């Protein structure tokens, strides 16, 4: 194998790892990505059923891809093509009187205007405006006081915060006050102060807490909704499945000259004289590099280098990170398209939510706190084959469901019978909205949070690698004093969702870490 020393090695070929690699390679650095699985993709990959039908293995929709990152990396261009289709959201109701949300507009599935449409539009538009303001912090390193007020880098970072402050002031007193009031509050109260506790409120609260270890009543959930609304709140279905998204990132990386090594895990990061020097692979091979970036979870990243390279406090912080995954995935192969009474074929192809009220969502969260499954789960489901027929054949369809509040630490553990219970629970819930759907099932795939952790290395199977709570964002993400992607030894960087700004398929954490590395003058 190559005796060559790379400028940088990236551990993990998830989209953030690829974004980091591509960013470095585009600046002329030699970069190698090492992926333990046989292909890149992390949480954004396809999983095939026996029949060959392609289901999104974990993530199934794209809503937060950062346009700045996409543009920088050339994603969506001929070198790294990516086609998406925007889906409407449908919040299902058992009585068939579903609520349809297109952007900021709410109506009923019957076509009538939703009685709360105007209130909803005002509320969600305001949150989108706030989200856009906050969004300007995401593409920069988080502000800190590390260097003191005389340090140029610190001042630069604080300037970003000052800019946010100015933009806030520019909104006018009233809006600024509203921003400062809601930013740390909970989505349950914010929603129900304005809307009746029905399917529209249910959709809004469910979107705020999907993937989070929090119920709508937990303070901080307005922020998590804003994070989700960072790109305006639209939901895109990638044509070709989520695998197509990773493929685009991979192509962008390769086009920039990145080497990608798959099927090998990294067992250890080599540290020489407190500098990252390369990695040891599972087959015993050693690859040298002047910098190493890790797309793994923060704690795993620490352990790869060895806890001895960190002070006690840093180790404790990593051990205490909150990363309890709560989202499970159930994919069903159906012999024909399911029918949801009250829903047109066009809307059936949308993003369907089972979250009939905010109270329902909160109730669904309760059991997760005690390691139990919810009795009435919150589900986000999409039938991608209705939009993209190439995914399945013979009129078969794929139903991809994200089941919320399924605990990583399930009482009794995640064995086959627990998985079966999860499928039964999912089908039982779907039956209420699409009677007879169970009879259509040909095959099923289940990914519990524990399975997600095993497949991707995401700590706790958590979507965002670390909970996006107020106590774990910005300057304290992934931990106090570790917010600048620099991770212990010189030249060792965290480039995954555990770093600022956090999770979702955004590409930002990877891209930011690469830029920070370059700025730090490591290469």
């Amino acid at each position, binding site marked *: 194998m190559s005796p060559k020393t790379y400028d940088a090695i990236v551990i993990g070929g998830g989209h953030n790892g690829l974004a980091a690699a591509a960013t470095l390679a585009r600046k002329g650095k030699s970069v190698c990505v090492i992926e333990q699985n046989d292909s890149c993709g992390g949480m954004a990959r396809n999983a095939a059923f026996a029949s060959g039908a392609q289901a999104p293995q974990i993530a199934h929709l794209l809503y937060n891809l950062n346009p700045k990152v996409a543009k920088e990396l050339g994603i969506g261009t001929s070198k790294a093509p990516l086609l998406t289709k925007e889906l409407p959201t449908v919040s299902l109701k058992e009585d068939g009187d579903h609520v349809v949300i297109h952007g900021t507009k709410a109506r009923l599935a019957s076509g009538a205007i939703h009685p709360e449409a105007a209130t909803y539009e005002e509320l969600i538009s305001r949150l989108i405006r706030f989200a856009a303001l906050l969004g300007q912090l995401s593409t920069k390193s988080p502000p800190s*006081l590390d260097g003191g*007020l005389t340090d140029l880098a610190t001042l630069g970072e604080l300037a970003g915060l000052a800019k946010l402050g100015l933009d806030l002031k520019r909104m006018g007193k009233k809006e*600024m006050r509203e921003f400062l009031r809601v930013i740390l*509050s909970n989505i349950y109260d914010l929603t129900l102060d304005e809307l009746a506790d029905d399917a529209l409120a249910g959709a809004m609260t469910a979107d705020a807490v999907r993937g989070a270890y929090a119920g709508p009543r937990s303070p*901080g959930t307005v922020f998590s909704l804003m994070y989700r609304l960072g790109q305006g709140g639209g939901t895109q279905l990638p044509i070709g499945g989520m695998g197509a998204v990773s493929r685009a990132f991979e192509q962008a990386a390769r086009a920039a000259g990145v080497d990608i090594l798959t099927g090998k895990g990294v067992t250890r990061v080599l540290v020489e004289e407190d500098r990252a020097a390369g990695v040891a692979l599972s087959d015993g091979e050693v690859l040298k590099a002047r910098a190493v970036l890790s797309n793994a979870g923060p704690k795993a990243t620490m352990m790869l280098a060895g806890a001895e390279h960190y002070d006690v406090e840093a180790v404790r912080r990593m051990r205490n990170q909150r990363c309890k995954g709560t989202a499970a995935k159930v994919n069903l192969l159906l012999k024909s398209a399911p029918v949801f009474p009250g829903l047109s074929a066009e809307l059936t192809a949308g993003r369907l939510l089972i979250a009939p009220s905010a109270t329902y969502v909160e109730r669904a969260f309760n059991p997760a706190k005690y390691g139990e499954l919810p009795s009435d789960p919150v589900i986000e489901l999409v039938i991608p084959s209705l939009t993209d027929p190439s995914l399945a054949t013979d009129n078969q369809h794929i139903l991809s469901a994200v089941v919320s509040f399924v605990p990583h630490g399930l009482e009794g553990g995640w064995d086959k019978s627990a998985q079966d219970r999860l499928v039964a629970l999912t089908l039982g819930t779907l039956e209420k909205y699409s009677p007879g759907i169970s009879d259509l099932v040909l095959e099923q795939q289940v990914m519990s949070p524990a399975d997600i952790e095993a497949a991707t290395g995401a700590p706790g199977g958590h979507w965002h690698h670390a909970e996006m709570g107020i106590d774990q964002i910005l300057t304290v993400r992934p931990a*106090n004093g570790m917010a600048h992607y620099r991770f212990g030894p010189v030249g060792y960087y965290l480039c995954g969702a555990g770093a600022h700004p956090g999770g979702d398929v955004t590409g930002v954490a990877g891209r930011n870490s690469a830029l920070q590395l370059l700025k730090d003058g490591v290469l």
Partner: protein
Amino acid sequence: MGQHDRYDAIVAGAGHNGLTTACYLAKAGLKVLVVEKNDWIGGAAVSRSLHDGWTYSNCSYVCSLLRREIVRDLELPKYGLQVIPYEGGASFTRDGDYFAYMSDHDALRREMARHSAHDVDAYERFSQTVIRQCRFIRPFLLRNAPDPTSIKPRDISELLFLVKQAHGLGAKELGETLRFWSMSIGDFLDEHFESDLIKAHIAGAGIIGTGLGVYSPGTAYVLLHHYMGDVDGAIGAWGFARGGMGAISNALGACFEEAGGKIVMGSGVDKFLVKDGKATGVALENGDEYYAPIVASNMDVKRTFLQHTGQEHLPEDFTKAVKRFKIRGSSGKLNIALDALPKFPAAPKGAPFLRGDMHCSESLNELERAYDDWKEGRWSQNPYFDMLIPSQIDPTMAPPGKHMMTVFVQYAPYDLEVNGVRSGTNWTDETRKSFAECVFDKLEQACPDIRSKTLHAEIRTPLDIENEVGLTEGNIFQGELTFDQLLFNRPVPGYAQYDTPISGMYIVGSSAHPGGGVMAAPGANAAKEILRNTGKGRAIRGYAA
């Protein structure tokens, strides 16, 4: 028609904050009237004789937060206030063990080691952090919350003070502070301790009085609200006011009257009188009217503006903000007259921690489940409570040899759910009784003979507290202590400096910054603000000057 007297200022409600405002104003030379709906003063800081020979602190029951600057300014000890500290406390388990919290450091270490050697060291880190956070926040309690949207020199200087304090912490501490303020008490404790019992013992302070669970972000901050007080300068210490919490109110009342103030009791405010956007006085329920250019309401913000102020005087946005201000009833109380001291079989006889706060909750999950019950409008079958027997330290509370017990119960819903319907009216004699029985069942975990020693028990639901004290939903803080309702957001963004849309009208109760607890800080801060606005700011010595 009744009286039509004129005053310089009128305070509506003789709670401890209202009285504090009144004291400062009277000492500054204003002619001040306090009107109170009950026949007694004190609001929720009262001592009441509801069973022959016994004195119940039947609402608030322990003292620590009362700002010593205020005690000093108003010379409250001179008027009979004496705070007696108690030491330690304990949590009892179902299987007959306990964890005792003791103020003696070595004793505490030994006791912790009995449960977990690991937690002994963890406690050192824990208490350092908490004390640091208390020190950080205390200077803000007696200052106005700056308005971040304002460019007035005062607001900017307050903001700069905040920035200076924050910067003084250094980067690392600032990060820790940001994290601490936004964490849940459950996560914070999980980070430090391994013993469920120790965690449960401490966690109560993060949820008492709130509509939040131990795993709700923001509850670590609430912990501070119970830790940042002191008794005679001992940070975090708690004590009993001799003669019950009413001693505080009575001292304030005496101070006020000696300064020339007048208190009218027995009829509450019916309407705040407003003319041309200016406060002119109050009309009482009995028809009396009193006039003053300054009117201060000690009632919570909802009661003040939604029930007793003409809506035509208020901007629509303001009313809307008041409506959405969260004041949730989440706690109840049992006040018990005891024939003799109940036995605590688990504890060594005469153990000092029996004189402190006692609990029977064993794990964070147990507390969180109690919160889940409350969300659904039920009291928990396994409630958390904070139980004390003050008569052991303060014999004036009960006849010789007899005792008085106060049991604060978290969580009790205001709008109780019965057969799928949630309403305050579901608190009937029957449901009140079953609520009490549920608490007694759990009390037996600590003292199995409690029922046989009970002579009389007063059951207080959130509805009872609302009816008696006037606190909306019986919420002890006059508004949830969540971030959307603290500092410049409390009670209404844009009106966080005790002012209101009505000129000359002020909010002086716990609905205002810095919030609830028998702290008297809102009342004192408001007085300072009022005096400043009337140009009398320099008329008195002491803190408010």
